[in-house]
């Protein structure tokens, strides 16, 4: 273990490990078949180091398991943000970071030569001019320093106006507390709060799915391509098959499920001439290629299709363009009006009509009714009838119900009989 380092250079490998531990939370050493035991041990040690308070150890017959006990409803922050704070660096990086920013704190503009000279005079540290220039240019690119040219002279300075304003406005810190948990790329709000020596103790987020922060680098690259209206090449890895493939598409919108936190890129595939959604956790790399000439037209087209998408699927099992689904439910008036309210607020634009006292019909037309099944099942106990123009969906719905009757032996016996 002598070559063990707590910090890492590359995020992508670790992203998969954390995801496996977090999402599944029960894999033992023997179950990580595609990695060497040494790699497993190092990754596990890192995870325990970064996320110590949340790591849980269990002993099972197939070996010891570690898992992450991260229950979003009980936490004021996303512990997985810590994984973003593990980038390795050189000794020069960290020393120059503090010394250059301290040297320029009062807003004065200095040349690289003057900065190098002052580092020696004021702080007693000797750096060569090239190293200092590289760091200043890198910080200018990151936005930490301003670079100005006056004739042949290049000077660097920094501006604390915004930082000081944020620090003196407590309500901005409250907003950062909230958005770190509730908005995309919450890691940025978390780091900003940390930089301003503030910590959330006010907000919690229900239905917050912490693991998805691991896809934020991919999300950032996609947003950047979308802002530039650029086509992208995606390097994908199947979640189950692990097969690697590449896809060319025009990235148009990020679809988000509030029930699982899963995020998808909705893109247009020129080759197949259709829209498709890709789960962000299967995207490994995003490379912008060229400007998408018809970007705005494609966005409009997507908008027109939106009313027909239930989730993320643009096609069904058959050759039909769309399918129609009708569900009739029982809900006594007025005491069960909340059921009718559920149909309206969760039904994504489907029509809700009262067809008899205490009887309501919900009807919708979408590309893929198969995606509706989990939602339809939530009305179990109230469904009078369900019909769908896709016979597969209708059959599967009733078949699953029969399986559940058998599973819980509604007519007696079985796992449900104790109740």
């Amino acid at each position, binding site marked *: 273990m002598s070559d063990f380092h707590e910090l890492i250079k590359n995020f992508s490998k670790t992203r998969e490990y954390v995801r496996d531990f977090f999402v599944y939370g029960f894999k033992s050493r023997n179950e990580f078949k595609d990695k060497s035991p040494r790699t497993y041990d190092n990754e596990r040690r890192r995870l325990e180091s970064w996320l110590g308070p949340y790591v849980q150890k269990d002993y099972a017959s197939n070996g010891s398991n570690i898992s992450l006990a991260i229950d979003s409803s009980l936490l004021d922050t996303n512990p997985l943000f810590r994984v973003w704070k593990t980038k390795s660096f050189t*000794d020069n990086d960290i020393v120059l970071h503090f010394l250059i920013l301290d040297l320029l704190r009062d807003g004065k503009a200095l040349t690289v030569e003057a900065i190098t000279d002052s580092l020696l005079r004021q702080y007693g540290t000797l750096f060569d001019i090239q190293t200092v220039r590289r760091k200043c240019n890198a910080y200018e690119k990151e936005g930490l320093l301003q670079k100005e040219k006056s004739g042949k002279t290049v000077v660097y300075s920094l*501006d604390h106006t915004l*930082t000081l304003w944020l620090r003196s406005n407590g309500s901005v810190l409250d907003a950062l507390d909230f958005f770190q948990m509730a908005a995309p790329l919450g890691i940025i709000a978390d780091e900003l709060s940390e930089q301003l020596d503030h910590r959330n103790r006010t907000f919690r987020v229900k239905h917050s799915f912490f693991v998805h922060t691991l896809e934020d680098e991919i999300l950032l690259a996609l947003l*950047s391509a979308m802002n530039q209206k650029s086509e992208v090449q995606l390097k994908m890895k199947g979640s189950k098959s692990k097969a690697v493939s590449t896809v060319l598409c025009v990235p148009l919108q990020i679809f988000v499920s509030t029930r699982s936190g899963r995020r998808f890129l909705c893109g247009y595939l020129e080759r197949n001439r259709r829209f498709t959604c890709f789960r962000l956790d299967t995207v490994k790399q995003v490379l912008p290629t060229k400007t998408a000439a018809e970007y705005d037209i494609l966005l409009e087209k997507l908008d027109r299709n939106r009313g027909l998408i239930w989730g993320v699927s643009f096609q069904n099992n058959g050759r039909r363009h769309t399918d129609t689904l009708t569900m009739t439910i029982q809900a006594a008036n007025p005491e069960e009006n909340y059921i009718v309210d559920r149909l309206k607020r969760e039904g994504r634009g489907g029509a809700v009509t009262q067809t008899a006292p205490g009887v309501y019909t919900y009807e919708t037309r979408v590309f893929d009714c198969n995606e509706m099944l989990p939602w339809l099942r939530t009305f179990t106990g109230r469904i009078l009838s369900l019909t769908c123009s896709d016979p597969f969906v209708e059959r599967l719905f009733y078949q699953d119900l029969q399986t559940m009757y058998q599973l*819980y032996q509604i007519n007696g016996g079985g796992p449900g009989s*104790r109740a």
Partner: protein
Amino acid sequence: MELFSEIYSCYYQVLRHLLNSPQGITIQEIHRRICSEGFAESMLAIIPKLENGTWNVFSREGELYLTRLTPPFTMPLSHLQKSYLKALLSDPRIRLFLDQKQLTVLSDMLAPVVPLWLPEQFYYYDQFSDGDPYEDEAYHRHFRILLQAQKRRQYVDIDYNGPRGNRVRHHYVPARLEYSVKNNRFRLIALKKIGHGKMKPEILNISRIQHVRPLEKKLSSSVDLNVLIRHSYYREPLTLHILDRRNALERAMLHFANYEKNTTKINENTYECRIYYNQTMETELLIEVLSFGPMLTVMGNDRFLGLLRARLRKQRDLLSLQ
């Protein structure tokens, strides 16, 4: 704009805090701070660099490490951070926090910055359509009173319209403001006195609050909210067996990610998941379990099994009548 960059790293933050001690700091105190702010093994990496002067940012005076910087050390905002703030300005919920004057000042400071995203670039396809009224003045007022009271641990007098139309009025201490992404709604987790000095957490929808008034009284004792929440769980968790077909395992693990839970593998294709919950979570959890159909099997507790079986029995009866 790099998201995974050393400038945001844990070590940089730890060192910044150490360097912000104007009076100097002992090695024992450095140890203590690295332990509390760094990762578990950070000390092994940081201490030698400080002791041997590789990170030449301290001078030594006897036992003390004296900062070479002029505290407080402040890091300016990066392009990424400015771009993020600019994106927040387009979110309707920002008005819950910032008044018009603050919004104007911040917008002016960020005028040349390109926002990281625009609201229309995200589509929350299964979010409920009846979210909170973020533009409503009364809602803003209530939200801000509750936010301030929460931070000051101050009691508030709340007049509330219950879900069944019943009007209730009580004194509460706001413990947390909870946002539900699915409902696009804020709830107040409020503590209510239940006698003998004990407190009980209750959940109130902020949009149902008719009137809220801050009181002088503050909560004097310390209350651990999570202990109260855990105390409210049923003694027996919900035990599920998940058959790993149709990707059910991964879906279930994600779906139930926000519950306190424990998962173990019991054979080649089956996993056992124990979920801890209380009465207020029960109906939502039942609906979530039903949504998986036969991919999940509820093994216990008896109470949950009873609720599930009652729904199935009712369903069978309704269909047999058709």
